[in-house]
């Protein structure tokens, strides 16, 4: 049984909640789109595969500057490196996975986060369409991307 939209929205909800916690509620949701032709990847991406109640994937992808602002908001000092970018992205993806697991339990299997820069090493199969929810903070953009397999449309 495919997840209800309320349950799917929970993924976006926990992402925004996590980012707002770090940024002091400064995340702005931009107008979402549905993309039919291509997946969108920014500088760094945290990918989670879904199985069970929803089959497909979610990922967060963000510019380096967006992650740098997040890093600075949390650590306030220290040199910002590529490793920091990956760590920040890993924290976001892990927070999503943790919250989703807490809510859905074994009914929905969420993979370990896969973090990569630019584009994935292993190609991701493009579903018929992906849902893209952009966020902005301090003029920098990040994107929540949801791709459900076509079996999720009964």
């Amino acid at each position, binding site marked *: 049984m495919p997840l209800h*939209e309320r349950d799917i929205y929970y993924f976006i909800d926990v992402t925004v909640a996590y980012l707002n916690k770090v940024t002091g509620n400064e995340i702005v949701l931009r107008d979402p789109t549905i993309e039919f032709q291509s997946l969108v*990847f920014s500088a760094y991406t945290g990918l989670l595969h879904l199985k069970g109640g929803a089959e497909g994937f979610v990922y967060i992808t963000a510019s380096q500057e967006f992650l740098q602002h997040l890093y600075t908001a949390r650590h306030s000092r220290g040199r910002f490196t590529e490793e920091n970018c990956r760590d920040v992205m890993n924290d976001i993806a892990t927070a999503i996975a943790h919250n989703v697991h807490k809510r859905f339990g074994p009914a929905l299997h969420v993979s370990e986060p896969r973090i990569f820069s630019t584009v994935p090493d292993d190609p991701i199969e*493009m579903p018929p369409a992906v849902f893209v929810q952009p966020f902005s903070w301090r003029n920098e953009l990040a*994107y929540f991307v949801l791709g*459900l397999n076509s079996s999720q449309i009964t």
Partner: protein
Amino acid sequence: MTGTEIYKRTATYERDAQAIRLHAPQWKLLLAYDGQRTLAEVALSADVPFAEALPLTEKFLDRGWIEEQPITLDQYLERAGMHGVSATGTAVPPAVILHEPKPETQKLPSLDAEKIVAPPPPQNIAPSASLARGSMRLSAVIDSIISAAGNNSLGQLLAYRVFLRVPPDLLLAEGIATVHLVNDSSLVRNETLQRAISNAFNEIVKKSLPDSVFAAA
């Protein structure tokens, strides 16, 4: 400005062209005005979001580089999907209504986007009951879905479920690679695609698509 206006470049543009300095996407839009296609069609062909095309068009008008191209009634009727004055008598045809978006705040990703082509259509499209003849306004389809969901955020995800059922190659053939869930300006003219969207709406929303999503023909 609604998107139905037709513009052409002017003599001022021809005179000033060598001195004009624009970014490449702006040139693409400026060079796309041909005195034949509507602003909405020109924006689509130039890959410029409609919301960005509006202020640019105003800028070009202000500079005198383009001007509106009046069209005859026959041309208008042809564009509206009718077959000339003789076929319609003297009735004034209803306007083709395009959705006029507010200034768009969203910046679509340019970045290092990986292009992965969508798979072929997963299903056959069964002919459905009678459909109106005019173009289908995607903005109105999305509004109907959101209205059925009773909640904006959930409605947008429901719209995603609906469009998961629409063969992507039909959308791409119509020049639709992206559906904006707020203020989409696309018009669907292809009847097969209209049927596919209508069927997907029926199956997911469990209602019939209202006739109001069609621009009057």
